[in-house]
């Protein structure tokens, strides 16, 4: 075994990726099935001069994560369902004040405390719209332990590059299973750090309307004095209720992600080119789907898989193209129908969209997907 090959849990790999991406602060309130994220952070961060803090609750841990980032550290918090709900208000604050941070949500059965040890994918919509008001957000979802590592790196890179919170949407299956991982050489990783101001300290505009729509960010405490508020604000960061300014701000916030969509969006396809039926799945379920595609192909059925790795913004353009080619789409997800709404919105009447939803605490199996494929075939 090469010395960079390990058997590792998804949660462990996520923290090793985060630290390699430069994470130096983690504030959390451990909750199953995300607990190992806090545990490994507590164990590993001190070794690299980083800080781990267990806060009194999820609300405070989100706040501490934002504060540490404002002071210049790459920061993360991690939680699951009920904790993710509690983090929403401060997550919105980070969106509004454009403070980079990574929030890991390891999905378990819900609603409420639900099924604490069982997998689900019930936060597709909450990860997009959980905090109030129009706001930008990036959500990415890994399907393997290797991806848990790589997506942690990607989550930090995107958050730093676009001055935005990024939600790393995991599920209990990927979080807890142990799998082979090959840790890449650190020098081969692209690491992105936030853009810093280059102007004189008295000329700094923390929310400057720059050409790329991403204002440079100074660390609190390094001499740039600026105001940070969740209230609608102008380029100086001070509150403003002026409608023209409010409109300008919300448009810049949303366009900041929209304009860079191509750089942000990542997806994976398997045998879609000639597919008549395309499965759409993410996270652990995408593995069941891939297994079903192989089984279906061995029976001569033209089935493929489209796997969004970036959930939000959704890879709309490519799915739309596929909608012109395939007859049927089956969205398999561990909830009662969330991602399917986005797929329906994009596909419209180009093809027929079907849901295979399941929310009983068990992963969707390849056999269940095969049954659905047969059902759809019978429709013609």
């Amino acid at each position, binding site marked *: *075994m090469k010395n960079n*090959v390990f*058997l590792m849990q998804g949660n462990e790999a996520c923290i090793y990726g985060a630290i390699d991406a430069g994470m130096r602060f983690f504030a959390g309130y451990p909750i*199953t*099935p995300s607990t190992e994220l806090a545990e490994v952070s507590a164990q590993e961060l001190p070794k690299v001069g980083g800080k781990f803090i267990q806060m009194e609750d999820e609300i405070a841990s989100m706040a501490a994560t934002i504060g540490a980032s404002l002071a210049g550290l790459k920061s993360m918090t991690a939680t699951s369902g009920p904790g993710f709900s509690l983090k929403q208000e401060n997550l919105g604050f980070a969106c509004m004040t454009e403070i980079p941070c990574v929030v890991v949500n390891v999905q378990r059965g819900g609603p409420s405390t639900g099924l*604490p*040890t069982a997998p689900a994918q019930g936060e597709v919509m909450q990860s997009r719209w959980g905090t109030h008001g129009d706001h930008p957000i990036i959500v990415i979802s890994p399907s393997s332990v290797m991806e848990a590592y790589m997506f942690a790196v990607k989550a930090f890179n995107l958050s730093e590059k676009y001055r935005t919170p990024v939600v790393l949407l995991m599920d*209990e*299956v990927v979080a*807890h*299973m*142990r*799998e*082979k991982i090959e840790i890449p050489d650190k020098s081969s990783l692209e690491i992105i750090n936030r853009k810093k101001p280059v102007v004189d300290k008295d000329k700094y505009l923390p929310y400057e309307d720059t050409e790329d729509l991403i204002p440079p960010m100074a660390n609190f405490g390094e001499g740039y004095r600026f105001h940070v508020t969740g209230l609608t604000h102008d380029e100086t960061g001070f509150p403003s209720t002026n409608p023209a300014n409010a409109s300008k701000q919300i448009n810049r916030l949303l366009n900041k992600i929209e304009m860079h969509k191509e750089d942000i969006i990542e997806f994976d396809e398997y045998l879609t080119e000639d597919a008549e039926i395309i499965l759409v799945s993410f996270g*652990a379920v995408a*593995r*069941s789907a*891939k*297994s079903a595609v*192989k089984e279906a192909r061995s029976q001569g059925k033209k089935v493929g898989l489209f796997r969004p790795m970036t959930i939000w913004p959704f890879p709309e353009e490519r799915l739309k193209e596929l909608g012109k080619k395939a007859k049927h789409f089956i969205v398999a997800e561990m909830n009662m129908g969330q991602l399917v709404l986005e797929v329906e919105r994009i596909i419209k009447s180009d093809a027929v969209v079907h849901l295979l939803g399941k929310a009983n605490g068990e*992963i969707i*199996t*390849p*056999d269940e997907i095969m049954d659905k494929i047969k059902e759809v075939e019978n429709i013609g």
Partner: protein
Amino acid sequence: MKYKEIRLSGSGGQGIILMGIILAEAAIMNGDNAIQSQSYGPEARGGASRAEVIISEGEIDFPKVRKPDILLSLTQEAFNKYIVDLKDGGIVIADDKVKIEDSDKFQLYQVPIMSTTNDVLKKPMVANIVALGAFNKITKLVDEEMLRKAILNRVPKGTEDLNIKAFNMGIGLV
């Protein structure tokens, strides 16, 4: 192409999960792919406990065990609970105290794992490693040396010699 689904079972506290981790890690050292998963939560404490491992030469898509090729059971309760979905013609490796009727649907190996652990080694905590030795001698899934390495990687410091002795003893039981 090799693709084996394995279910290891016993009672909570016997180190069944560590056994799964060691087996999966050794398989990876061997150059194969492996996934280990476990039942998780309060239901795993006391009573029947299980760990699942998939070992494959190729890519492993679906990460859970569906129909095990091999079932290892250290207790009667675990055997009764987990025998139900064994693949037809699969392998059962059970402690010799486990009462098994109707064994014509699978290949049965009964090995004195618990008595060797408790009466000869007198160290109940290494039952999992004794079992691992017997398991691999029967299934030959992983290179023995890789398993020794994986054991040394994962067992607590100060227990290395005991665990290697337990492993060798397990091999000797078959």
